[in-house]
């Protein structure tokens, strides 16, 4: 399906989901409420006319103070059978949880762990929601806009051993002797 037929098909098939659809730069985009996300995803995976067998990417956007609902979740779906793509956007508030997609696409396991790690959005029903990029000792979620860009959380003490520094300076003098 072309993006245009895809979005008109979607509005015909799911009037009860309250979808808002558009074509953005040749790409079919659908906005859906977070409560309706599982229903839409299940249909996208199972229905043969859509047949989105692949979850290409799952990421998030932090709008911070620019919007009342803070986060966007962005799903990119691809159908190998029909060679069409769909972008699904969901608004998620800071205290809200999103439903997991791991039962539909196993790859969502790692994607959702990444979004949890970097943005701090929780996914209900995820089998193992822990950090994937950062270390377990890390506090906070570094891709949030309110995480200070220069804040570092070293695992071991960051300092020059003074004894070694003295040795280095002595050796440096020897090398650069006239």
């Amino acid at each position, binding site marked *: 399906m072309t993006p245009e037929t895809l979005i008109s098909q979607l509005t015909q098939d799911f009037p009860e989901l309250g979808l808002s659809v558009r074509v953005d730069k040749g790409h079919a985009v659908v906005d859906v409420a977070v409560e309706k996300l599982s229903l839409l995803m299940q249909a996208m995976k199972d229905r043969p006319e859509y047949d989105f067998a692949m979850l290409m990417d799952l990421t998030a956007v932090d709008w911070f103070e620019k919007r009342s609902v803070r986060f966007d979740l962005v799903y990119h779906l691809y159908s190998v059978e029909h060679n069409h793509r769909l972008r699904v956007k969901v608004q998620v508030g800071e205290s809200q949880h999103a439903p997991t997609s791991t039962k539909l696409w196993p790859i969502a396991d790692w994607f959702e762990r990444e979004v949890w790690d970097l943005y701090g959005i929780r996914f209900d029903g995820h089998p193992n929601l822990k950090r994937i990029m950062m*270390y377990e000792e890390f506090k906070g979620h570094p891709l949030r806009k309110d*995480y200070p*860009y220069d804040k570092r*959380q070293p*695992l071991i003490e960051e300092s020059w051993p003074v004894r070694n*520094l003295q040795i280095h300076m002595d*050796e440096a003098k020897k090398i650069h002797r006239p």
Partner: protein
Amino acid sequence: MVNLEKSVLSDLLIPGAYYTTKLDRAMGWARKYSIFMYPFVTACCGMEYMSVASAHYDIDRFGAGLPRFSPRQADVLMVVGTVSQKLAPIMRRVYDQMCEPKWVIAFGACASVGGPYDNYSTLQGIDRIVPVDIYIPGCPPRPEIVIDGLMKLQEKIQNQKHPLI
């Protein structure tokens, strides 16, 4: 530049009062031409390391041609590429496992100062956790400057103290 090899060998043959000093130079000469490197390769600088280590640039000419993948057998830790905060304790451990005498080369901008990655995840230079002997600049460094850094390290090894006890 005096010919260190010739002077050291001929000096060793003469018994004299300066024997310990001369032994340092002989040890330095032996050690600088038998560098066993531990390539701690984490990022794109590794491509330049491969180039410099293999036949075209050939650091074997400088006696550093045999990379050891056990810290116990290595005496130069070459940190090639970005070291993240998550990796830092592991690199520190590799350094601690190496036997004395040991030296460290920071290969490229990331290992030296963190490079372009001024962010939450990147260690801002490996000299925050281990003492570094030679910094090789570049993003990534060309093989010529790697060889220059290696020769600087050889000069450092030659001229430092080598206590036997």
